[in-house]
């Protein structure tokens, strides 16, 4: 059982605000991924939990115990660093054993645990080597092993895969997920890599400039972004965001965009009718624009015209860089499309999946009716600043 609660946590470094009023609950056995652009305070969030940074304000609870003033060594937390931070003067065995020695674990037990972890990670024949004699991937495994042998309450990872080559990263990703399932321990994982975040997370927490913008399952965050930042940040290629105005009648609302407009279906119109007259930002994911020749029948859409500037063949699909009334849009359509650079095309926009954000607050106006994903563990409702409820 390891539950973590950040309550109104603020951390300043001099004048720099690293984390601002963060409230976040991390459930037992969950794989929480913290994601956000560089410098947004992700590392600070986990370093605060590890006991490596003192809070400016707020409280951190580990299993309902306030740990603000608990030194790092008494927190029973293990951490994997981006640079791995292996002790260069110790052998792989001693690196993995160090934490256990510091906690006064008996020699035989140390040996048993280190050997077992080394077997699991396939590094048992490296135990006598020094870190300098290891490849990048092997070092990463040792760093992982050093955390595993501790059998801690919580694992913290600070971008542990960013120094690996692409192939190794994919492989290690899957292994980390398996490891999480097997250990059944709480993982908090920092990354700025979307694929890592999407593939491994049970829940995602999206941060920017020290502020938490949305917490939810990968599906929630992807399909129902709370605000413009999350919408644009999550998803690659990223969502098209166009300024517009919401007009019309409760029966038929329209988003007036530069040079064209999108009519909303009746039930959606009803929901956003109260916002008529607002300036909005309209978000369209590239995959929600379709070549009409290859579209599924049930898609309710509206046709827009544009000129293809560049096409990029991706294999199973094709990216079309479009100019629609002087606005650049990206569409991700069936690879069989006949659209080519320089031609005019008409594409079907899936109006059920268009996101509408208030231009002033940048918050979403209405949420989609996706099947509600069950919350991992029913807990107190978690207020996240920036999330529209």
């Amino acid at each position, binding site marked *: 059982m390891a539950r973590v609660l950040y309550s109104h946590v603020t951390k300043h470094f001099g004048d720099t605000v690293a984390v601002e009023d963060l409230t976040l609950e991390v459930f037992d056995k969950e794989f929480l991924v913290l994601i956000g652009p560089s410098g947004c305070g992700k590392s600070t969030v986990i370093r605060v939990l590890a*006991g490596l940074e*003192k809070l400016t304000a707020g409280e951190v609870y580990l299993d309902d115990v306030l740990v603000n003033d608990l*030194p*790092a060594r008494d927190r029973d937390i293990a951490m994997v660093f981006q640079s791995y931070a292996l002790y260069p003067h110790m052998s792989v065995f001693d690196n993995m054993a160090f934490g256990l020695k510091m906690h006064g674990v008996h020699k035989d037990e140390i040996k048993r645990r280190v050997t077992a972890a080394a077997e699991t990670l396939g590094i048992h024949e490296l135990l006598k080597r020094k870190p300098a004699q290891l490849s990048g991937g092997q070092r990463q495994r040792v760093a992982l092993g050093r955390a595993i042998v501790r059998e801690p309450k919580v694992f913290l990872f600070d971008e542990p895969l960013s120094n690996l080559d692409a192939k190794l990263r994919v492989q290690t990703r899957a292994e980390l997920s398996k490891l999480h399932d097997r250990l059944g321990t709480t993982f908090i994982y920092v990354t700025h890599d979307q694929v890592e975040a999407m593939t491994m997370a049970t829940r995602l927490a999206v941060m920017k400039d020290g502020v938490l913008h949305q917490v939810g399952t990968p599906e929630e965050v992807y399909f129902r972004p709370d605000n413009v930042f999350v919408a644009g940040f999550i998803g690659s290629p990223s969502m098209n965001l166009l300024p517009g105005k919401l007009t019309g009648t409760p029966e038929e609302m329209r988003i007036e965009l530069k040079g064209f407009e999108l009519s909303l279906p009746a039930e959606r119109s009803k929901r956003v009718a109260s916002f008529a007259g607002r300036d909005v930002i309209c978000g369209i994911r590239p995959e929600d624009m379709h070549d009409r020749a290859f579209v599924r029948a049930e898609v309710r859409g509206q046709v827009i015209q544009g000129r293809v500037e560049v096409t990029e063949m991706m294999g199973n699909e094709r990216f079309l860089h479009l100019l629609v009334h002087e606005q650049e849009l990206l569409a991700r359509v069936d690879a069989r499309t006949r659209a080519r650079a320089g031609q005019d095309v008409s594409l079907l926009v899936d109006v059920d999946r268009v996101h509408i954000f208030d231009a002033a607050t940048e918050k979403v106006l209405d949420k989609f009716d996706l099947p509600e994903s069950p919350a991992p563990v029913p807990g107190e409702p978690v207020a996240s600043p920036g999330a529209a409820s």
Partner: protein
Amino acid sequence: MTLPWSRVAIYTVLVLFALVYLMPIYVLLVTGLKSFQEVRLEQMWDLPSALRFDSFREAYNSLDSNLANSFKMVVPATIASCMLGSINGYILTKWRFPGSDLIFFLLLFGMFIPYQSILIPLVKTLQQLHVYGSLWGLVITHVIYGIPITTLIFRNYYANIPTELVEAAKIDGASIFKIYTKIIFPLSLPGFVVVAIWQFTSIWNDFLFAVTVTSNPGIQPATVALNNMAGSFIVEWNVQMAGALIAALPTLIVYIVLGRFFVRGLMAGALRG
């Protein structure tokens, strides 16, 4: 995570040590600034009742020609050392040839030898060259025995200038001299400052060469004169202290003004630990 009392402890220790390190300077100053009537050993730590420069004046009067000697020796020796070191460092980093590493090793060892082991031949040779007992003899000595350290500092400095720069110039047809004057030398200013400070300080502070190569008191540099003054029973201790401060002043000023470069020289001398 550090408790306040441990911060207090840290600062207490640091300040105590600072006081101990400054203690000699304090004594030098208050002694030098007292009148002759006030300078008694029992009152060594007391502040002067009135500022009087008696001791300084007397110390300066007996050291002034020696200070001049020191300057006359230090300035040319430092300049020559810098030039030699720069050329050597340039060749040993950018124009390496078979055996250049061996030469470097042999140079380096020269930095560590006890100079006692070359003193007798040195004195004999300088006598043969008719520069024994003259400032020029000292200048030559300091320049030659400064070659290892100046070469080392410049070599480490030039090692950080990308070799691609030199290779590009070679391809462009620049000669070894052109590359030095147009590329290396203009980038060398910090290296020259470090080496100049190093040589200035160590030549000024040298005693062994000074006392063996110059026997005539009129020619001796300040360190030898100060030592003679301190060894004589005629000179009052307060004058000795004032003399010590005067003799230390040039290098102290260099340290205070250019301390950053002084530290760099030290680290280079430590062979990048």
